[in-house]
């Protein structure tokens, strides 16, 4: 019958129209600035730097290895290494980023920096309201703006942060065990040397090297070539 489908369609839209006033399921729109949906755990928008402890500057996990800077496809990360060193989470002396800027307007949220980082220092944030009225300075986030505590990381990505923490603790324990073993070996060596000094026949002590540091000193390249345009002078 011609026209039957039209009537059915009209009934359907009428049902939607009337239903939108009574049923929440028919009107799923979230009125954004007033209402918000809690961000998903898997959401990733823009990277941030993780720091441990209270002081963001002292606790930054980043060791300025510049791997992320090199891997970043749109080249939006700018790192300058520090001259002096400070101890990292294992207690080993490392350089740290004197400057660490990410350009929001260039970043494409690909998460590659997060994936290549060997120090779990850079992670993805769920914060998405990055709009600013300052076109240059406001879009180039420095390390202070990028730094967020490990607790914050736990609050936005609980599962992932726990895994990272477990891994870091394991590594730290391993390093400590190794250091302990090295110390013991050194002590044993010293004792052996002492013994050898007393008794002539020499006994070769077990050689124990401390844990090899990561490739922090590999890159000899100077500060990045591409410098971002600074804010209006």
């Amino acid at each position, binding site marked *: *019958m*011609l*026209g039957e489908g*039209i009537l059915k*369609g*009209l009934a*359907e*839209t*009428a049902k*939607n*129209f009337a239903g*939108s*006033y009574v049923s929440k399921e*028919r*009107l*799923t*729109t979230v*009125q954004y600035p007033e209402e918000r949906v809690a961000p998903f755990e898997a959401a990733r928008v823009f990277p941030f730097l993780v720091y441990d402890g209270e002081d963001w500057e002292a606790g930054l996990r980043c060791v300025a290895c510049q791997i992320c800077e090199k891997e970043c496809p749109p080249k939006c990360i700018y790192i300058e290494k520090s001259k002096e060193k400070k101890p990292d989470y294992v207690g080993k002396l490392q350089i740290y980023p004197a400057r660490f800027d990410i350009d929001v307007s260039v970043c494409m949220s690909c998460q590659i920096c997060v994936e290549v980082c060997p120090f779990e220092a850079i992670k993805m944030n769920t914060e998405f309201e990055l709009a600013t009225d300052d076109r240059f300075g406001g879009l180039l986030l420095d390390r202070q703006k990028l730094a967020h505590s490990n607790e914050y990381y736990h609050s936005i990505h609980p599962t992932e942060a726990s895994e990272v923490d477990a891994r870091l603790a394991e590594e730290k324990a391993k390093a400590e065990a190794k250091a302990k073993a090295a110390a013991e070996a050194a002590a044993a060596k010293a004792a052996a040397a002492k013994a050898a000094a007393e008794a002539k026949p020499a006994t070769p002590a077990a050689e124990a090297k401390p844990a090899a540091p990561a490739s922090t000193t590999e890159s000899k390249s100077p500060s990045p070539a591409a410098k971002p345009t600074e804010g209006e002078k």
Partner: protein
Amino acid sequence: MVEKADQIFVTLLHWLVGFLPTGWQHLASVVVCVVVIIAVYPTLFALAVLLERKGLGRMQNRYGPNRVGPFGILQPVADGIKSLTKEDVVPFRADALVHFMAPLVLVVAVFMGFAVLPMGRNMELVDMDASLLFFFAMGASTELSVFMAGWSSRNKYSLLGAMRAIAQMISYEVILLLSSVAVVMITGSLSLVKIVEAQNHYTWGLPHWFVLTPWGLMGFVLFVIASTAETNRSPFDLPEGESEIIAGYFTEYSGFKFALFFLGEYVGMFGIAGFGTTLFLGGWSAPLSVLTWVPSWIWFFGKVLLWICFFIWLRGTLPRLRQDQLMNFAWKFALPLTLLNLIVAALWHFMGAGVVTWLVCFAILAIAYVLMARTGLKRGKIGPRSYRYAE
């Protein structure tokens, strides 16, 4: 009291022009009426746009505009300010004069139609003997502006849109006209005032609206379909099919000229809704004899708004037709039915009104409708297209 409320605008007009010398009174009353029409319908246009956006939103399970003012009721104001402050771009190669004239011609033509519409008892600007003809003449001249817009823009999409619009409007103009000819046959008058008067009787409390007769019902349905096509509304909005030809004939219009086109389209919709109301829904007459105390203009504008709401509902429901479906439907289905409807109207006239006549006329139209729909669907002429090789 009832009489006063009904005639309030007429009394107001007489009081207003009473201040002038006698020689000027006629001219002054015409000017005042024109000003009122030009003020009322754009206001109604703003209301209808808001209604459409909110209503369509609700049909698609979302809120419509709800940011400007409480519940978004100031959205039309914001839209108006936006279109006024936008840059008016005229294409470099465009025929500047025609390009400029097209929206004006459209708006003037659609507003001319209101001159003859009876918007209430004694509320018509001109009581012409051939007002129906006048309305059609004005309705047809909107096609000119559409073609002017499409041609002068020197843009292939504009031209395509204009060609589509012209083809569609001319095809459906025939149906529009022939379906209202049945009304003229029964009332024996081309005057819209007389047509309303002919429907303003009551039997057992029910009105003598033409939509309640078999030929009137069929005419009404065809009129609604044709008017949807005439005003380029969905599902007949091919001339401005956004997915294919950007915006059709007003692709190259921006700023206030675009707003004028938009206004013209909606005011044309009011015009045709008011016209259809006058022809089939009894114009300003009340739907029940017990409701005759309600002022007549309330009934007229209520019916027009109801018609607009139905248009919005249709737009929220139906997808756009294809050009061949559009043409097949017009010439192979709607036109034969309209012609048959004329014959039935003649039958009604000669058999005299009565239950038997009603049943006979209804049976003829219903059988014809079912048969034509069946055969048409079977041959794939008006229904879904059957593909020979693709399936």
